[in-house]
């Protein structure tokens, strides 16, 4: 049992992808599976900054939203092909990460959370007001991707199963990228900065620049999640940029296990499934999810996967 656990952890990217490939077969309906894919990626991007670097940002919806909106705008207003629009969305999310990160890094500790929330709201209001481009309160509509052409193959993007696997291809690529970063020398620097940034600086590492770089990488991943979400929903709701969505990423990460590779996906799965299940019984799902979250903060701060990892390691 423990050996299987270790094997899965060592080949983490392959394990996640293998699981995600059969995932739709486990889910009651495909929209939920796709949602978990997208929010799982969002949480993975967020986790890079929060779980691994120790910076609690409450403004990450800005990167998801920028990714969504810029992809949508390029397609709806510019007539760009979907793949070019996605590249633009991701790139712009990275730029937003650079700008917000630069300002936010100037603050420490809890202040950072407040500042990132407020900076994220700048993006929210800016996009809200730019009605001509973004559709304002009603969101951006009309993002059409009837088919995806790769090589000579034409995939019907409107078929939810096909859509899932196309999106999965992108998610897999992003996960591979994140895994490489975490295993790289830079990944070690990230952990050192989280553990003790004074010591990291004394060792010679530029802590501010390191944090900024992680910020940008995190924003790129979240931007990709946003870009794909725009293609999936065909619209971009204005709430994509609101800090409540940032808060959802935080919740998913904690529920699943921050600072672990699998945690964000586990958290996204639990969060969204819980939301789905609870709404069957009551419309007051926010109270239930909020309550569950508080319960985890108090009693299971390592999250579901994180607690499992700790149990396994203690047995050693």
């Amino acid at each position, binding site marked *: 049992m423990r050996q299987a656990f270790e094997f899965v952890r060592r080949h983490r990217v392959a394990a996640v992808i293998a699981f995600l490939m059969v995932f739709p077969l486990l889910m009651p309906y495909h929209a939920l599976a796709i949602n978990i894919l997208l929010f799982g990626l969002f949480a993975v991007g967020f986790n890079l900054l929060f779980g691994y670097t120790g910076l609690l940002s409450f403004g990450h919806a800005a990167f998801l939203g920028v990714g969504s909106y810029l992809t949508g705008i390029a397609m709806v207003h510019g007539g760009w092909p979907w793949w070019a629009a996605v590249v633009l969305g991701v790139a712009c999310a990275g730029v937003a990460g650079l700008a917000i990160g630069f300002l936010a890094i*100037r*603050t420490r500790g*809890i202040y950072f959370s407040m500042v990132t929330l407020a900076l994220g709201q*700048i993006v929210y209001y800016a996009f809200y007001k730019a009605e001509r481009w973004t559709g304002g309160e009603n969101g951006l509509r009309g993002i059409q991707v009837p088919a995806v052409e790769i090589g000579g193959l034409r995939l019907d993007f409107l078929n939810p199963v096909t859509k899932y696997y196309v999106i999965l291809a992108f998610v897999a690529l992003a996960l591979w990228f994140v895994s490489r970063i975490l295993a790289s020398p830079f990944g070690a620097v990230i952990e050192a900065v989280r553990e003790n940034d004074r010591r990291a600086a004394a060792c010679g590492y530029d802590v501010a620049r390191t944090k900024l770089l992680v910020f940008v990488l995190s924003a790129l991943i979240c931007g990709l999640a946003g870009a794909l979400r725009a293609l999936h929903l065909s619209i971009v709701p204005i709430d994509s940029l609101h800090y409540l969505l940032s808060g959802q990423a935080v919740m998913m990460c904690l529920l699943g296990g921050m600072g672990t590779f699998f945690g964000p996906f586990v958290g996204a799965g639990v969060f969204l499934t819980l939301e789905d299940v609870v709404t069957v019984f009551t419309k007051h799902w926010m109270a239930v999810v909020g309550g569950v979250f508080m319960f985890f903060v*108090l009693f299971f701060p390592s999250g579901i996967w994180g607690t499992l990892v700790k149990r396994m390691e203690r047995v050693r």
Partner: protein
Amino acid sequence: MEITPSLLALQLVTGIALGAVYALLAIGLSLIFGMLTVVNFAHGAFFMVGAFIGLYFMGLTGNFWFSLVLTPLVVGALGLVTERFLVRPLYGRGIDYPLLLTFGLSWVLIEAMRVMFGIEGLPSSTPPELRGAVDLGIGFFPKYRLFLIFATAVVVLALWLFLEKTRYGLIVRAGSRDGEICKVLGIDIARVWLVVFGIGTAIAGLSGVLAAPTRAVNPEMGIHVLAESFVVTVVGGMGSLPGAVLAGLLVGIVFSLTSLFAPDLAELSIFVLMAVVLLLRPQGFFGKQGLMS
């Protein structure tokens, strides 16, 4: 639209009234942060609860003054319960945990208000005694807004007296600068934290009941307010009460005047103000340098 001096003055008063609400919120946040090093992400929710409960008591008794006194007590009591059972277990863990918990709490509070009062919110109205306008020579000003400013000034003065002149206030101030001193003096620091959290949330509730006649009262009203109170805190400097007051007023005025000259940019303007302060003076006007970078 012609901008006359009296229109400008009116907008200024509106801005100061708005700023008064912000100042109260920021004071509550700063008290809780300065003393417990906790950023209360449920602060906007407590504000919202105060607005709802304030209207409820007003509807129940027909008496605004009764509601004005009772509501902060009720919200403060809620804050006491929160600190004692939800936040206290988290001290000693990382600094992020109380923040995360209060964020989860805000979701529960929002939904609780939906359950109790419906998702549409409550219709708010100005108490009859404070309706209408007053002629101050340079123009007519809404009575309620003037009252709001006056009431806030009274509360700030009372708080200042409490902190500067009473023994308990001294303990609160000492605690916020050095928790060790309290332990050495044999003061039960946990009790102080409990009381400060209660006071901070009570003030949030008070700002809610004061603000209710001036805006729509619905379960979502605290969501944007939280972000705005963060702006005030960054501009004024976290942990600084004079900073909270001055920054609150500044932000309220900036918002109000921008609404007059460039209405589309009003909400954006205060966040841009915060960004500028972050660039030039990250610790805020009155903040301590140690907190930043």
